[in-house]
């Protein structure tokens, strides 16, 4: 027998599913087997090199050989991107958790300011925030009696941490709000303080739901680390461009940029898969 679904749920889930994160998409696109995507990936890489080889009739040093020659350097740059992503994520997460908790504070002004800051940093372009940090943070700071220089990479980490902070704040707020009010009420009736309720009852449940969007945000941040090349910090993107300038061969553009894309893909795609897998797992046992 067919189980008749009501029409009602058609229009109910107007909230984007569970992910208040940057791209708001939590839907499991996991229907595609990873093998298919892998095949498409390999096809893309082969095609890029093939197009380049074909365009290059009077082959000087082979395209593939040249790409391989530059790969270690660009990979080093990529590791720097990853280092920046980890640092920004750490700073942004700490700040974001505080901002998120601020949004559910019982003090009205704290709530208002946290909300406004979240909205402001969430709705500003990442690149503009990066410029903002690069230009407006001082180049040195006095901590106690010691003057500490703020290098460009440090400012870049802060600049990227700003939007991360705002998005983490939304994830935290969304995660806490997803816990039914009954949990707060029953904890209160058991004479828990507000802090105890949050720490012992609400957060342990909410964290599980925050992890997938948080991981999603991390992948977005990793991809956004390329922005630091725009403000003049050497990363994988800068080094790729440098390699292209050094070689001065237009036939290298396609394969080298394709390789850079693949580097990021190979890192970010598994994170996306894992995120989806976790989402599905957590979605089942609410």
């Amino acid at each position: 027998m067919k189980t008749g679904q009501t029409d009602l749920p058609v229009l109910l889930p107007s909230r984007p599913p569970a992910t208040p994160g940057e791209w708001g998409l939590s839907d499991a696109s996991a229907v595609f087997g990873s093998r298919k995507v892998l095949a498409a990936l390999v096809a893309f890489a082969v095609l890029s090199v093939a197009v380049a080889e074909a365009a290059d009739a009077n082959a000087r040093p082979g395209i593939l050989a040249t790409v391989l020659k530059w790969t270690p350097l660009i990979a080093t740059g990529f590791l720097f991107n990853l280092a920046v992503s980890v640092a920004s994520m750490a700073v942004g997460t700490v700040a974001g958790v505080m901002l998120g908790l601020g949004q559910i504070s019982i003090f009205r002004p704290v709530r208002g300011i946290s909300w406004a800051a979240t909205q402001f940093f969430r709705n500003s372009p990442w690149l503009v925030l990066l410029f903002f940090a690069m230009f407006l943070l001082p180049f040195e700071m006095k901590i106690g009696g010691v003057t500490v220089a703020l290098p460009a990479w440090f400012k870049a980490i802060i600049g990227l941490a700003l939007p991360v902070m705002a998005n983490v704040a939304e994830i935290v707020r969304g995660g806490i709000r997803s816990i039914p009010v009954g949990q707060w009420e029953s904890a209160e009736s058991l004479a828990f303080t507000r802090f105890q309720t949050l720490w012992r009852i609400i957060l342990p449940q909410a964290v599980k739901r925050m992890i997938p969007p948080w991981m999603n945000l991390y992948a977005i941040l990793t991809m956004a680390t390329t922005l630091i090349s725009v403000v003049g910090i050497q990363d994988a993107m800068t080094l790729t461009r440098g390699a292209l300038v050094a070689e001065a061969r237009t036939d290298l553009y396609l394969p080298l940029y394709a390789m850079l894309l693949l580097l990021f893909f190979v890192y970010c795609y598994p994170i996306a898969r894992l995120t989806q897998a976790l989402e599905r797992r957590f979605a089942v046992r609410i």
Partner: protein
Amino acid sequence: MSHELGAPIVVIDAIEKRFGALVVLRDISLTVRRGECVCVIGPSGSGKSTLLRAINALVPVSKGSIRVDGIEVNDPDLDKLALRRKVGIVFQQYNLFPHKTALENVMMAPLHVLKQPKDEVEARARRLLAKVRLSDKEGAYPGELSGGQQQRVAIARSLAMNPTLMLFDEVTAALDPETKKEVLVTIRELAAEGMTCMLVTHEMGFAAEVADHIYFTDGGTIVEHGPPAEFFKNARHERTRAFLDQVL
């Protein structure tokens, strides 16, 4: 109810339906004549709904023949549109289109499928809504109507295609007793007007009152059938009696 019974509209001959290894319908044969009202009863999971859906080609059968007013349903080259113009179906969960008003729900298929002129369709839709006593709800959206009201709109929506046969798939199962009655009244009127009907239902009282013929299915087969008076008074099979004892 006894009418002058006409020519056969539905002739089902030895059909079988499998989902993988599971046999849902086994060797089912039955006939519905023009103007007749047939009720199919039986425990849940006995294949009643699948049988109705098979008649409308919503579920393909694995074996056997279903002829609806001369159209063979179990045929890869079936003209589904021709079939569905003849057969209306009403579902347990109404399945109205939630983004359209009651009137629009009734008008949609004649406009889009039959490509009939709009003013004609609209006039007929208003008449049909009046017939199911919902003239005052023409502009309401499904979400604003009670279950019984939605179900009556669904009946009007099927009638708008001028079907020769109406199928009702447990149409009152999701309704509370109050609104159930409205829907049953509507179906009774239809049957009285001579509409050929086939109902899957759990309402034994209603079946006894409205049906010309009752089929009892269990485990995917027809256990026994007969006119209601006979069927309810002296069921021959043990399974039928057990079922009737439980529900009556």
